[in-house]
């Protein structure tokens, strides 16, 4: 037998709702004709029908999960890919900072500035080691 789908479960839930409603209307229309016992029994049946309908509706929601499992997996993987791309883009700033630090070192070398060379090497090192923001 094929598995129940969420749509079918929803239709079943509707049926239980309308049955419960119909029993209620029947009780009120025939209130004086029904014995206390009959009325009580019908009231219990009405209540059970409504509860079953509610349960089926909650169950229908869990069936949706099975029907959408592939889509959920696909979107989760696309979302992680996007995060990866964002991380790559953030690293470009670090690249720029390092390039600027190397350029300072280059200038110091061209100028034969010994102190400047020492400072610049430290600058390049610090920039390279700085955490990615």
């Amino acid at each position: 037998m094929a598995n129940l789908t969420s749509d079918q479960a929803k239709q079943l839930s509707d049926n239980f709702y309308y049955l419960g409603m119909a029993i209620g209307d029947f009780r009120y229309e025939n209130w004086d004709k029904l014995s206390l016992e009959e009325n009580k029994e019908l009231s219990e049946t009405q209540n059970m029908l409504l509860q079953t309908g509610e349960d089926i509706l909650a169950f229908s929601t869990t069936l949706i999960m099975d029907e959408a499992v592939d889509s959920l997996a696909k979107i989760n993987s696309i979302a992680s890919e996007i995060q990866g791309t964002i991380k790559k883009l953030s690293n470009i700033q670090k690249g720029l900072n390092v390039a600027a630090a190397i350029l300072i070192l280059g200038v110091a070398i061209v100028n034969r500035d010994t102190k400047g060379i020492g400072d610049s090497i430290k600058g390049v090192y610090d920039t390279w080691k700085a955490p990615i923001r």
Partner: protein
Amino acid sequence: MNKYRLKSKLILILFALNLVSCVNLKSVGDFSVSSIESIKNYELIDYSFLQHCLDRCADEAIRLYEIKRAQECSCALYEDADSVAQVFYNTIEGYFVGLGELPNNELTTYSSEALLGVLTTEEVGPLQIDERTASAFSSLSNTLLRASTDFYRRKKLAKYIEDANEPIQILLDKFEVIISTNLKGELRFRRERLYAYYMDMKMSRTVLSDYEKGQATADYYHALEEIKRKEMELEVFGKSLNEIAKGHQVLYENRNELSVKSLQNLAKGYSSNIKALISEFKKLNH
């Protein structure tokens, strides 16, 4: 003369590159921001499957006049339904957060201050570079960088939107069913149960005084009003999911022209529809 030509060429190159880099991804960014804000309203929804189950237990205890030390409720099925809704919420939200971050300009507005500082040093070796030229170089390098990353981002975004459209349409549709059909549908049962409770009270004439009759009627309509408010809240949330799905479809259909003005206007239309629903939701939620 040569210097003049070089400057003109530089200006032309800058102008052309600016046109390319100005291609903004604002339409995607704005749409994602509105979508995230709207999806996050899920956390504010004043109802859940579990809450429905607990309310049902309370209604039953009242109907049967059962007084126990603690309420006995079996709500495992309803807790499962809430977990499913939560998975949909987390997945859809996660996707739109990523989609919203990628077009964010801050990501590619790299600071070229350090580079500018070096170029304006009075002496760069044997070269002398004046401040204006240094600024032009800096601007050019920044524009080049922006152009390349904008191109990269557009390409990536188009790919993500293309890959995600089919599954996200399914998820938004199913999530809408969970909220506007199933969760809202549970409230219909509560309404019917209340009707039966008050009708039984009326028909069996257990309420005798006029004051009690008036009080019971007021209680009934007050409860109905509260149910109606919750139903509307769920309905508005469901509608916003539909708008998000439509907006994403438009992005998908125009994924290779993400910069076109008409797309920006279209996406803006969906963003403002979503914003209108957000404000409607907030009114109902208070």
